[in-house]
């Protein structure tokens, strides 16, 4: 008891420190030079708002709300961070205003719904939901709402993934492995298979059977390097050098993952 008292007295001043507001290093609001999507509070009540909210749920908990179309442990948000808002993580506000668009992947002009089908098929290693399904309609409504006020027909800053300047040296997967061990394995695991919290996937797998397949956008080294450069390690975007981003992307690209379904169809 005497000990406790002593601790209490000794510890009291220290314990009180947080109660007096310290001089916060005035978190300077950054210049909003990226498009600012509307806030959650502005989602209207009624059927349109319901569709938007449903779209957001599918986007952030894809396995739970679009179960039969998903074939791996990822969600849309795994790559489109901040619920589809983060610049340089192919944000939905920039996507909505840039469709319909010609895509070299299938040589046709695609609508946004078709583009989303592509992410289901390749990035989610699943089955594309029909264009008129509630799943696609909700996701398109979510993107539409987020793009409110965005200029149509010009390239928006932060749209798409970051385009890497060409690497000066050829990407080196061996050096990439050491970058991976030092900066990525903490969360994605030494074996790339991600980390769980109880029964839930917490950090998504970056390769292996539960990751995106070989037909996905990130299965191209340049796209992957651009994604990593601006977004990883989580909360430390833009902290790897360009060369480190190229190298770690080359390392990840060498690992196994599900095949491209377009090849699997004709063996």
């Amino acid at each position, binding site marked *: 008891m005497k*000990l*406790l008292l002593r*601790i*209490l007295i*000794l*510890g009291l001043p*220290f*314990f009180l*420190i*947080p109660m007096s*507001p*310290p001089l*916060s*290093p005035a*978190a300077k*609001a*950054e210049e*909003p030079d990226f498009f600012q999507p509307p806030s*959650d509070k502005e989602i209207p009540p009624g059927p349109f708002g319901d569709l938007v909210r449903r779209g957001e749920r599918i986007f952030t908990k894809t396995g739970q709300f679009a179960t039969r179309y998903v074939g791996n442990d990822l969600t849309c948000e795994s790559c489109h*961070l*901040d*619920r589809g*808002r*983060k610049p340089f993580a192919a944000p939905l506000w920039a996507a909505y205003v840039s469709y319909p668009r010609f895509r070299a992947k299938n040589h046709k002009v695609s609508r946004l719904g078709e583009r989303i089908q592509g992410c289901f098929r390749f990035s989610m290693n699943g089955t594309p939901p029909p264009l008129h399904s509630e799943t696609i309609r909700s996701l398109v409504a979510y993107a539409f709402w987020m793009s409110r006020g965005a200029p149509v027909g010009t390239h928006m800053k932060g749209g798409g993934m970051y385009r890497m300047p060409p690497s000066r040296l050829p990407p080196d997967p061996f050096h990439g492995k050491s970058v991976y061990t030092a*900066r990525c394995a*903490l*969360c994605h695991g030494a074996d790339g298979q991600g*980390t*769980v*919290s*109880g029964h*839930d996937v*917490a*950090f998504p797998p970056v390769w292996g059977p539960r990751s995106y397949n070989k037909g996905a956008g990130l299965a191209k080294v340049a796209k992957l390097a651009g994604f990593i450069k601006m977004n990883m*390690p*989580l*909360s*430390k*975007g833009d902290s790897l050098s360009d060369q480190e981003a190229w190298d770690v992307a080359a390392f990840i690209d060498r690992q196994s993952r599900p095949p491209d379904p377009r090849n699997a169809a004709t063996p």
Partner: protein
Amino acid sequence: MTNPSLLVVLSAFLICCFSIPEAQAENVLFEAGKKIARAGTGKAGSIACMECHRLRGGGMPSIGSPRIAGQSAIYIAHEILGVQQGTRYAPMMAGVVRDLSRKDIQAVARYYASVRSPKVAEISPPDPALVEIGRSIAQKGLWKKNIPACVLCHGPDGRGIPPHFPYIAGQNKGYLLRQLLSFAFLKRKDDPQGLMRGIARRLTHEERKAVAEYFASLSPPPAAGKRAEVQGSHHP
């Protein structure tokens, strides 16, 4: 010609050789840890962990001592080493853990990782307005300031992602707030890649208070990564 009794003897021998020593080693470690938790190391001036963390690891909100029951053994050991090596400034703990050997640390970490404790009563009731602000930061982040949702790294509802990401749900609020300040003002520098320092620095003081209130208002998980079983059990 196999002699059944020989087989029995042989398998008993094999079991002794392989499985029992491992289980036994675990047990010995647990018991050694429990002893340190209950009575200290026996060295002069050694204080038992239970004086501040309780025997079952529930912590003591009144003195800002954290709950540690069910955190991963790797995390617990990492924090004690941090205090010993001075990468984590913790004046109340420093003297206590100064003389712990690596073996002692392993033992006491194993012990506290295995025990379970309900939430210990808080010093004050949650502030509903702050809890709401905290919930939004915890679940959605403040990406304009490059702050991801806390739950991305601390697990759904803050129940931890073992072994490196501690649970923060049900932790006491005074402790949570002080850690955020320690990270922000670099008194705690033991976080991998400085992940937590950057985030804590970018939060305003009001936001730090809000997330502390929010996570303290939740039920703690029985162990890192496990779902909380009972909602809001408040045993002292």
